[in-house]
């Protein structure tokens, strides 16, 4: 296993605190929202008639309790919080999908009036019809939407499939189309909910590209997410919500830390291995290759495993050690190995903030057919307890083949069976 240790172009966008001095484009004052969670759901006439005395009451859920903040022009603004903290409700109020019960809200510029990608895509329609419909949904005229059709299709690289119904698209094609529509809509303010939570790796990558493009184009973006890596990479400021209240507003790094503390702070069960969040280092990519050097999800029995992982340091990592455990799907450890940075003796054994490390090489494959999981750890300061990152499921893969056996590995044996003469 060799370690490719190099400075890569810095992909973490620096926060731009100076934007706070710019004009306000979203002004949120004291926004409150309550939902009635009925004890008993009466949603037919029949039930209303047969249970005329049933109370119409229920539990009141205060989703937002007087939240106030400003978003300035060109800011990339993150909203984070646990499930049920009110962040999506807040976004929906900003997008005029829900109506607030109290407070007021003012906005400037043209808002992209949707909060997820591919909203309103109809699988029964062709991409041509979908693009025009979506364009109009986003506030373009039909003529404008038609004019931009070519640009959208070029961006999505789907010109050859313009008259194909969307239901016949692969998920990747659908994602490309959704992104192209969003970029071409060219709104001043975009509100986005949790896009990275859905979709595959290519989807996530495309998201990141669009975020960067929007950010650099000086567009205002409000993003609701669970993904602290995105918050730390893109946001100029971020806001932490808990139980409908604003807990923190400011530096994205600090917001992420507080979010983690909230999530991981109170837990004491050390017996169960847990993910260590990517505050100090983050996983960029991890994949397997077959002997031909192609990325594969599964490996044929006996073929050497081409192993590739790229990490990025968020803070300086001194004396980092990269450890990998191969386990069966049931959690039984099969084997593991560790790797240090490959640096000359004269240099310090440090992975600097923003630097990436690419671990790559091949692993002898003695695994029997079955499902396996790779766990990854980065420890630092030559101390195994000091974990900088712990990824429980780095890669999941299947070894396929026609020679199953007992246990989980096959080993070379040199055993003969000879008949002995009776004594």
């Amino acid at each position, binding site marked *: 296993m060799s370690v490719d240790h190099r400075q890569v172009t810095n992909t973490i966008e620096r926060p731009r605190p100076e934007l706070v001095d710019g004009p306000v*484009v979203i*002004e949120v004052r004291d926004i409150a929202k309550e939902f009635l969670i009925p004890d008993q759901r009466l949603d037919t006439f*029949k039930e209303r008639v047969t249970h005329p005395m049933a109370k119409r009451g229920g539990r009141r859920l205060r989703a937002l309790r007087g939240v106030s903040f400003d978003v300035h022009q060109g800011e990339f603004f993150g909203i984070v919080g646990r499930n049920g903290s009110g962040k999506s409700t807040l976004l929906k109020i900003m*997008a005029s*999908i829900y*109506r607030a019960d109290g407070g007021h809200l003012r*906005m400037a510029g*043209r808002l992209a009036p949707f909060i997820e990608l591919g*909203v309103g895509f*109809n699988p029964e329609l062709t991409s041509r019809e979908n693009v025009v419909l979506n364009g109009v949904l986003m506030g373009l005229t039909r003529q404008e939407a038609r004019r931009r059709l070519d640009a959208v299709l070029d961006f999505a690289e789907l010109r050859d499939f313009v008259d194909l119904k969307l239901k016949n698209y692969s998920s990747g094609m659908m994602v490309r189309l959704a992104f192209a529509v969003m970029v071409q809509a060219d709104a001043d303010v975009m509100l986005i909910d949790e896009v990275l939570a859905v979709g595959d790796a290519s989807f996530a990558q495309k998201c990141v590209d669009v975020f960067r493009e929007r950010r650099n184009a000086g567009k205002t973006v409000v993003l609701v997410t669970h993904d602290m890596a995105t918050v730390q990479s893109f946001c100029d400021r971020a806001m932490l919500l808990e139980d409908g209240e604003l807990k923190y507003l400011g530096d994205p790094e600090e917001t992420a830390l507080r979010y983690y503390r909230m999530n991981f702070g109170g837990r004491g069960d050390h017996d169960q291995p847990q993910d260590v969040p990517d505050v100090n280092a983050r996983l960029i990519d991890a994949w397997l290759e077959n002997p031909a050097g192609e990325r594969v999800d599964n490996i044929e029995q006996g073929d050497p495993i081409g192993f590739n992982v790229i990490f990025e340091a968020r803070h300086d990592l001194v004396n980092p050690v990269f450890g990998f455990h191969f386990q069966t799907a049931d959690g039984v450890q099969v084997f593991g190995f560790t790797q240090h940075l490959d640096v000359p003796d004269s240099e310090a054994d440090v992975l600097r903030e923003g630097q990436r490390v690419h671990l790559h090489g091949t692993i002898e494959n003695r695994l029997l057919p079955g499902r396996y999981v790779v766990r990854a750890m980065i420890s630092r300061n030559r101390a195994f307890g000091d974990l900088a990152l712990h990824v429980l499921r780095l890669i999941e893969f299947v070894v396929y083949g026609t020679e199953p056996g007992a246990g989980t590995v096959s080993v070379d044996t040199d055993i003969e069976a000879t008949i002995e003469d009776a004594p």
Partner: protein
Amino acid sequence: MTDDALTLRDVRGPSALGGSVRRSLELLYLIAVTEFKRTYFGTALGYLWSLCRPLLLFAVLLVVFTHIVRLGKQVPHYPELLLLNIVLFGFFQEATMTAVGSVLSQESIVRKTQFPRIVIPLAVVLTSVFNLMFNLVVVVVFLLGSEIWPRWTWLGMIPVLGALFVFTAAVSMILSALYPRFRDIGIIWAVAATALLYGTPVLFPLQHATGTLNRVLASNPLAPLFELTRRWVIQPDAPVQHSAFDIAVPLALYALICGLAVWVFNREAPRIAEAL
């Protein structure tokens, strides 16, 4: 960056109308057209299927009312009148029945984008209008075949169809707005719409009903529309009831239902996304 991009405007949440009128109209048209194409041209026989329904109903009713009940024999041009009435009532029935669940079936956009909510039921009605136009072509061919020739009074159908459209839209708005809260309204309306077929002068002219039945039919807001259609398109000398009751009651009900539609939809629209 234009000034517009920096001028703060109040955001008041979703509403029945609201937003730019142009965008609403464009959305309305696009949703209706795509839905029409999908429904009527998506299948092999496409539009022919949708034509089969009124034609079959027409054939059955024609046999019933000319050979069994024999009421049809007393009405001049009965087959032509029956076909035209069935096509017009079919429009009302199809639009309102589809509209009931329309907000729910468009859940994906209602919960995730902002646009005037009224577009949804109106688009359903507009889709049915397209279908009605095709069906009316068939009816006109049938009329010409029966030697009923066009005359100036046919232009009277423009306001009649307009009034039918407005009333259908009003009922559709009420149904679609209430459906998220009362999920059985679909079943109730299916029964009510069938009852309404017999409560409207569709199968026979108003004058053939007597006593209380006549009063009930005459108070139906749709009744004057069918009566005027008969007179203007089929039989210019047809008698039309025009007592104060026959004009005031259906007109008042018509206005009441339209007003109710605006009130109900306005009331429900801001929170309709939360009820889904």
